[in-house]
């Protein structure tokens, strides 16, 4: 049997004005979450390579928990579970940002750890031999070099997190997928709409990729 299906361009283009309403949410959740995740990642990543095992232990536990459980479960837990604990509802947008922050934070911790550990020990020895303190040596010698190496994996994480926000349609945040679902409920043009949703994600991630490639080229030029 022939399906007789034809792609309806006017339906696809017609959906755009509605779909773009989701973009600010998608960007806000992903970049808001990533920004906090970056701070968490630096903190936890550095703790995870601390000499004291009492400081390493909580960092490792955090990383394993948030890397080892699905982000969908994490956001459901925050949105539906946590209110029982805190005694009040949690805004869906806040829950989404928190989930991205905690989840990307775990991965970024590993990126930070790997970046810092990849810097030769001789760099630290040279720094302290010059009379710089441990922390001066770290922040002016080790970190700038480590950060440069962290840019590609950080970009990778940003792209993963942007796509992860699509799962948050389940808690009703008005991001891209959710806008698509709402639109389809009245037009029944699932093929065209999800196709456009996919294109919009691709537009965001490709822009980011190009930006990163530019930053990388400039960053590596001066080493």
């Amino acid at each position, binding site marked *: 049997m022939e399906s007789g299906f034809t792609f309806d361009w006017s339906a696809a283009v017609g959906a755009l004005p509605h779909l773009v309403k989701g973009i600010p949410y998608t960007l806000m959740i992903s970049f808001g979450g990533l920004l906090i995740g970056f701070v968490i990642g630096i903190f936890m990543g550095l703790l995870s390579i601390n000499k004291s095992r009492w400081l390493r232990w909580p960092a490792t536990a955090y990383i394993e928990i948030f890397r080892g459980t699905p982000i969908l479960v994490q956001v459901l837990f925050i949105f539906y579970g946590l209110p029982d604990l805190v005694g009040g509802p949690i805004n869906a947008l806040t829950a989404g940002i928190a989930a991205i922050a905690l989840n990307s934070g775990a991965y970024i911790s590993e990126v930070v750890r790997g970046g810092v550990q990849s810097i030769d020990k001789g*760099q630290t*020895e*040279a720094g302290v*031999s010059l009379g*710089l303190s441990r922390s*001066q040596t770290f922040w002016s010698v080790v970190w700038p070099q480590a950060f440069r190496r962290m840019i590609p994996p950080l970009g990778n994480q940003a792209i993963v997190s942007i796509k992860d926000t699509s799962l948050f349609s389940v808690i009703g945040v008005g991001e891209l997928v959710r806008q698509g679902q709402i639109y389809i409920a009245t037009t029944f043009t699932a093929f065209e709409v999800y196709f456009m949703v996919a294109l919009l994600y691709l537009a965001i991630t490709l822009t980011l990729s190009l930006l990163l490639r530019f930053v990388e080229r400039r960053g590596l030029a*001066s080493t």
Partner: protein
Amino acid sequence: MEKIVRMQRLNKYFGQHHVLKDIDLSVEHGEVVVIIGASGSGKSTLIRCVNGLEEFESGELQVDQHPLEPKGGNQKNLSEIRKEVGMVFQQFNLFPHLSVKDNIMLAPRKVKSTDKAEADKVAMKLLDRVGIANQADKYPSQLSGGQQQRVAIARALAMEPRLMLFDEPTSALDPEMIGEVLDVMRELAKEGMTMMVVTHEMGFAREVADRVIYIDSGQIVEEGKPEAVFDNPQNERTQSFLSRVLKH
């Protein structure tokens, strides 16, 4: 004369391995001490103890009047010691993300809070002294090995150290670049810098050293004026070592 380094019965272990055995060693101001020995003999570890890059298990160590305690003890003098002791590494260890000039300016700016113009002036003077003022704005990776090591020496000198440690400074260099680094070190010695040098360059040792120390399996086996150690070694381990390295 006043001693700048005093080591007494210093012992150092890497796990079960006894790397330095009851080392007694003093260095006077203005003295150039060259430490020779086979690889793995403990000679690098010895000078790395002087600025605390290696901790030691027992014994006494004083650097420029500042005592440094064994592992687990009080290390509060370490930062003072490191400000007064410069170090040059086998692998140069320049900071690849900073320009040549910034490599030299970093420590004076951060540690001594020297203002930028002054630090800049000092850096340029030092680069001129090691013969590469025209490379000031380049990055380390754009320089040859010999040039990089000369920058590393200038970087250490910028802190106006009272003692310079050289840990096999020419071992990672192509043969044609060894001379230019040794020349800079020779100049430094002539100007009266106190130096402890670990090296395989026996010609340099003979010419520049006030005292040569031969170390074998973590022990000082022989020490004395270069002529005495090289031409008339008393210990048979020294004799065998020298006959091996001087053959070439």
